[in-house]
């Protein structure tokens, strides 16, 4: 008979969470082999849809899930087999961080988190027995700035298009995400009012893009970035002083000894989240192993690892057990660090006394203005975005 230790699961996703350290730990804890392939986010979506047999587990973002799941390449998971289902942060279940909070705009994870039944491809409005993705990692993004070079406080998304930063600004060139940042900017400027930034009308798209094009023609942007390293290099080299950014990228800049701040803004954050999905073809022993893996993922070691990188994990309680008080305080509660804060690899990330930008978990995740999204007018939006790039 087949032993679970002989199983090999193939996982792919972006480099953000497809860490070899996880594979090692899985081998150690669970005994089976996990193969990790890291791709850029475009390739992830592509691979997920076009080569469903080439992976067993997909590590994808929720907004991508909105596109992919209806294609029928993934199978939903039975929540009764997820040990820590009840402890998953409620954003992914009900959409509300706490019962009082409002649901943010965009493709909120809970809205694509469940389907009606085992073989259904339509998303359920309410939580059901069948979950599409098990959340792994999420964060709230904002603008990154070079405090030494901006010369004045940055408080609003609209500062991205402030002529003061002409030739020194940058924006993310992944249409679905970039448009959200742009919408945050336009809304802050008061130039456009959106019904739902996560699901714009053609008119709203037109207006947003027009503003971007004007800015581009005026020479506002130094560059666009598409990959992690580009954003780091732009910031570190001083080519750009303000740009939409990802949290670990800020950490990477700071690790080089260059001041960089992940600046909380009054309009709030743009959030994103990723999760693990199971390939349709998984069954039998491999399916067993996959559930084991997911339960392991939520059981704390992985969560702690992710939290230490500046992301957030899905089940906070278990992660806390794998972190020191000081770490928990620094990363999750917004407290000043007592000792040096180390990265998972053991490098010093922050000196003692540092405080995390944006404060505590609740300050950040509670101030999400919108989620990365896929719009109904997706195709139109992409065309217009390309116009912007080509302008």
């Amino acid at each position: 008979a087949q032993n679970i230790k002989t199983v090999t699961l193939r996982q792919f996703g972006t480099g953000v969470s497809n860490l070899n350290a996880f594979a090692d730990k899985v081998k150690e804890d669970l005994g089976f082999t996990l193969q990790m392939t890291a791709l850029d986010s475009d390739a992830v979506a592509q691979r997920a849809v076009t080569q469903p047999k080439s992976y067993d587990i997909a590590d994808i973002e929720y907004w991508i899930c909105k596109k992919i799941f209806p294609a029928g390449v993934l199978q939903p998971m039975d929540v009764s087999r997820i040990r820590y289902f009840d402890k998953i942060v409620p954003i992914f279940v009900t959409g509300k961080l706490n019962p009082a909070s409002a649901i943010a705009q965009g493709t909120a994870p809970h809205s694509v988190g469940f389907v009606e039944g085992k073989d259904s491809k339509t998303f359920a409005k309410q939580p059901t027995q069948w979950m599409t993705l098990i959340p792994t990692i999420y964060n709230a993004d904002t603008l990154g700035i070079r405090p030494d070079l901006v010369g004045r406080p940055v408080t609003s998304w609209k500062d991205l298009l402030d002529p003061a930063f002409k030739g020194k600004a940058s924006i993310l060139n992944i249409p679905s995400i970039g448009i959200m940042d742009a919408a945050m900017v336009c809304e802050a400027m008061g130039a456009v009012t959106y019904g739902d930034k996560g699901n714009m009308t053609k008119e709203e798209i037109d207006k947003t893009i027009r503003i971007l094009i004007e800015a581009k023609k005026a020479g506002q942007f130094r560059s666009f970035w598409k990959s992690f390293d580009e954003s780091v290099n732009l910031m570190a080299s001083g080519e750009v002083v303000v740009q939409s950014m990802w949290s670990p990228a800020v950490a990477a800049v700071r690790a080089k000894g260059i001041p960089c701040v992940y600046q909380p803004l009054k309009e709030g954050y743009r959030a994103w989240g990723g999760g693990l999905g199971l390939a349709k073809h998984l069954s039998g022993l491999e399916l067993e192993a996959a559930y084991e893996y997911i339960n392991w993922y939520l059981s704390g070691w992985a969560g702690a690892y992710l939290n230490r990188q500046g992301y957030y994990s899905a089940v906070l309680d278990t992660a806390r057990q794998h972190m020191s008080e000081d770490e928990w305080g620094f990363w999750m509660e917004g407290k000043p660090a007592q000792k040096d804060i180390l990265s998972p690899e053991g490098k010093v990330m922050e000196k003692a006394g540092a405080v995390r930008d944006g404060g505590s978990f609740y300050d950040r995740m509670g101030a999400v203005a919108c989620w990365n999204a896929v719009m109904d007018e997706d195709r139109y939006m992409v065309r217009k975005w390309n116009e912007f790039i080509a302008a």
Partner: protein
Amino acid sequence: MIATVHPPTGATAVARRGRPSRRRLRIAPYLQAAPLALALLVFLVVPIATILVVSFWDYDSVRVIPDFVLTNYEELLGSAVTWKTYLNTIRYAALAWAFTLPIGFAVAYFLAFHVRTVMWQMVLFLICTVPFWTSNIIRMISWIPFLGRNGLLNQTLIGLGLVDHPLEFLLFSDFSVVLAFVHLYTLFMVVPIFNAMMRIDRSLIEAARDAGANGRQILWNVILPLTKPGIAIGSIFVVTLVMGDFITVRLMSGGQSASIGLTIANEISLLQYPAAAANAVVLLAVVMLMVVAMLRVVDIRKEL
């Protein structure tokens, strides 16, 4: 007489032995060409045909839907962006050509006419190819520390007191894109021109000098006309490579410029395959037209 000359036996003799002998040899070339034909059929003709077919399909955000619609072409050709992007791409091709041609010509000229031994020509040529063994992508990202605002070049210029502000146009601009093209593709210009120059009979140059031509006149009246086929082939290389490029434009313009290749790559990454396919068909047509135009100058088969 030791020889007998038979009278010609007339046309019947010709007719008598009309059968072809050694038929076995006749299939051999087909067998030998078959692998090439097969490889190109499977990996070129059929895929291009697939592109053509798919360009008429419909799609939604994740899937392609077999169909016959013209919307892909309508959206493509009806959009001002397309035209702008084509113009921009052609502009890049023209710029890249305008720089690679004189540089390539000068380098080829130096190698062909000033370097005297074949050994040295080989050595210098190999020296030129060494940088190409570094991964393209890594080579491109390494321009950033060199050309950036605080890069090596700007620091040197400021250090020398030549400028007082860092030069911004060095990076993430058309300048840097064209620079990278020149860097990547000049060698494609050098090789065919060098090849053409090496085939110029040296006595032609002496004959021209004998006829009183000075260096410039020799260049213009003898070398240039005879190098034309090489120039045409090099130009075909450079132009087609630039027309299809996407990675250089993206990395070196900081994503700020568009090219057709980049648009296609974007559409691919957004799973909009039919749109990408329609774009590809148009690009293919444009490139082929350009190549055919350039081929009027030269018969490639003669140039080998």
